[in-house]
């Protein structure tokens, strides 16, 4: 139960940050990506603020033995640059550039119950599920020797 409450609180603060920063507004995000138009640099300030605070928080976490409510830290373990990383990020970039919406703001904006956001979130879930299916199938057809469970996420 404490774990659930803590996760909820973190999601809440994360969402408040997204709203206050203006990053839930697709037009503001597109304004940042539109470097050939009326460029709006706000997103850079958001990133700077977020990275600065998260760096301090993560440094603190690195010095602790374990998180408060779990037995260990789940730091991403991979450091290789592979094709899926680059291709996946490129596909993500096209989608992000088309709509100005990424997963965090999409979920926050669900509260507005507008048709475009609902369509976007359903499509996003399908895309995520589609990747799971695709990956499961390719793993099933040619089992990688030894490299059984590749770790999943950077985030």
């Amino acid at each position, binding site marked *: 139960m404490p774990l659930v409450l*803590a996760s909820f609180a973190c999601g809440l603060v994360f969402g408040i940050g997204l709203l206050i920063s203006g990053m839930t507004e697709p*037009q503001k995000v597109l304004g940042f990506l539109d*470097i050939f138009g009326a460029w709006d640099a706000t997103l850079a300030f958001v990133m*700077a603020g977020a990275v600065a605070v998260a760096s301090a928080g993560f440094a603190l976490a690195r010095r602790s033995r374990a998180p408060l409510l779990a037995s260990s830290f789940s730091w991403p373990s991979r450091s290789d640059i592979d094709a899926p990383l680059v291709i996946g990020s490129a596909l993500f970039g096209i989608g992000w550039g088309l709509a100005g919406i990424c997963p965090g703001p999409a979920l926050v904006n669900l509260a507005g119950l507008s048709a475009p956001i609902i369509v976007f979130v359903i499509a996003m879930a399908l895309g995520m599920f589609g990747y799971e299916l695709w990956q499961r199938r390719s793993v099933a057809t040619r089992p990688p020797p030894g490299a059984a469970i590749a770790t999943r996420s950077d985030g």
Partner: protein
Amino acid sequence: MAGVGKTADIGWRKARRRRNIGADPASQGTRTMHNLTPLSGLFGGALIGLAASMLMLLTGRLAGVSGIAGGLLSSGSDKAFSGKALSDKTWRIAFITGLIAAALIVPLFGGPSAARPASANLVLFAIAGLLVGFGSRMGNGCTSGHGVCGFARLSARSIIATIVFMGVAVATVAIVRHGFGG
């Protein structure tokens, strides 16, 4: 025509002042209407960083939204033991509920509410959503996981991923808005 544009602009500015930031009542035709808001950007960003720090310090998890949401959709055959799998889903649902709750609470204090983009082109949102969902899982992260947490960890993978998706997104907007290369 110019007169109409002007009144709409004034109305928008009023609305913007009232609601502090962000809100554009009609996102159609607001192409040139976004201004730099560095202070609310920095403050909001700091809250995002705080949330990522809290999630790590409290639960040991990384605050990557695509990873958190994607984990809900993977049946996770490697952790089929129901108790553990269930609690793995629960914290993810709690985090996402928190995200949505933010958009219900912040407006009560005079802050911006959830964006409601004009639904002129639902097909575009569907295509964009598919690409964002598929791409973020394939690339193991999105703006939060790679962009914020990855940079904070100085992860080479995340820095490369962020450069790629930012670059591609900038190119996409350039083509869509300015028709470069088309």
